[in-house]
């Protein structure tokens, strides 16, 4: 019987990288079939295969860490580096959309009336729902910090309460944004104003939904006693991601909603 003499994690062979890559193929070919030939079959298959892959891959990581003990200190360090690098890549992703916004808004073309906001665009009042949204996300940043400290101090009940509040605030933000999208007097097709507004805020909203889902998974894991007071990296990763989502919103609020109005 052989045992390793190092603290690193040699993973079992897994089918999920392959199924994930194939689901990306189905997504891209599915988009072509939908755009050009009005067929949604491949797209639906891509979403199903993507969901199945994500569920099983992350389920396996929980098994490897919590049930098999593979997440030693050095392995956890690697996971931390990984999450940091991923969030940095997301910063670059959003930077592109902010670049596009400032490119168009700092030097508005004659077609827009030479001004920003463009002629005929009635912007959303930044002191109404957008300000509420800002307070909702800032409050959620406080509640997730409360949850983390409760976890580190071994206070199970408060950790669950604070995490639940954080998730509810995330859902509240999403519902408010959806209602704002319906109420807006402009659409994504309304020139470069519409494009920059809805692509930037839309991707942000998607990230709020992803972050809320990640937090919900942490809540379920906490119910099942997965986290200890000094080993809970999944929760920390979710908290980092959540703070990132909050910071992106602050940039959106200041740039697009406030300066851009």
């Amino acid at each position: 019987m052989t045992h390793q003499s190092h603290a690193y994690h040699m993973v079992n062979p897994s089918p999920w990288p392959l199924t994930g890559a194939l689901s990306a193929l189905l997504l891209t070919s599915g988009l072509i079939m939908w755009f050009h030939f009005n067929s949604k079959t491949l797209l639906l298959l891509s979403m199903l295969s993507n969901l199945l892959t994500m569920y099983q891959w992350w389920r396996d990581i929980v098994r490897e860490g919590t049930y098999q003990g593979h997440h030693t200190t050095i392995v956890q360090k690697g996971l931390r580096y990984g999450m940091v690098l991923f969030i940095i890549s997301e910063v670059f992703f959003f930077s592109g959309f902010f670049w596009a916004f400032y490119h168009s808004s700092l030097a508005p073309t004659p077609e827009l009336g030479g001004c920003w906001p463009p002629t005929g665009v009635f912007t959303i009042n930044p002191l109404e729902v957008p300000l509420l949204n800002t307070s909702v996300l800032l409050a959620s940043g406080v509640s997730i910090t409360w949850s983390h400290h409760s976890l580190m101090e071994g206070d199970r009940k408060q950790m669950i309460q604070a995490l639940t509040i954080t998730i509810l605030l995330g859902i509240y933000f999403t519902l408010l944004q959806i209602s704002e999208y319906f109420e807006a007097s402009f659409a994504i097709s309304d020139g470069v104003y519409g494009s920059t507004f809805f692509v930037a805020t839309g991707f942000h909203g998607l990230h709020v939904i992803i972050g809320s889902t990640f937090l919900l998974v942490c809540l379920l894991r906490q119910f099942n006693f997965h986290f200890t007071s000094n080993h809970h990296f999944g929760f920390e990763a979710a908290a980092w991601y959540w703070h990132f989502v909050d910071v992106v919103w602050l940039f959106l609020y200041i740039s697009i909603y406030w300066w851009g109005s």
Partner: protein
Amino acid sequence: SSRLSPLYLLPPQVSQALTRFFSSSARHGFQNRVAEKQKLFQEKNDLPVHLKGGTTDHFLYRLTMVVTLGGTAYSLYCLGWASFPHKK
């Protein structure tokens, strides 16, 4: 609940439900079963982690492979179809 807690402002059905939900006692369902899972996933049976949980694992694995491999085959068929002109 005591008059010091804002819970007393709510109707008793609501305040009791909230108290029960956030209570840390084991009575209402969530018990620490991590040790059982650790035993299951550390059993020396040479199963890879993605199949080690039981029959549901095998079912989900097969379902995922069918969807992805079947979908890939279908996407190649679509590519073949889209590559040729079709009379409208």
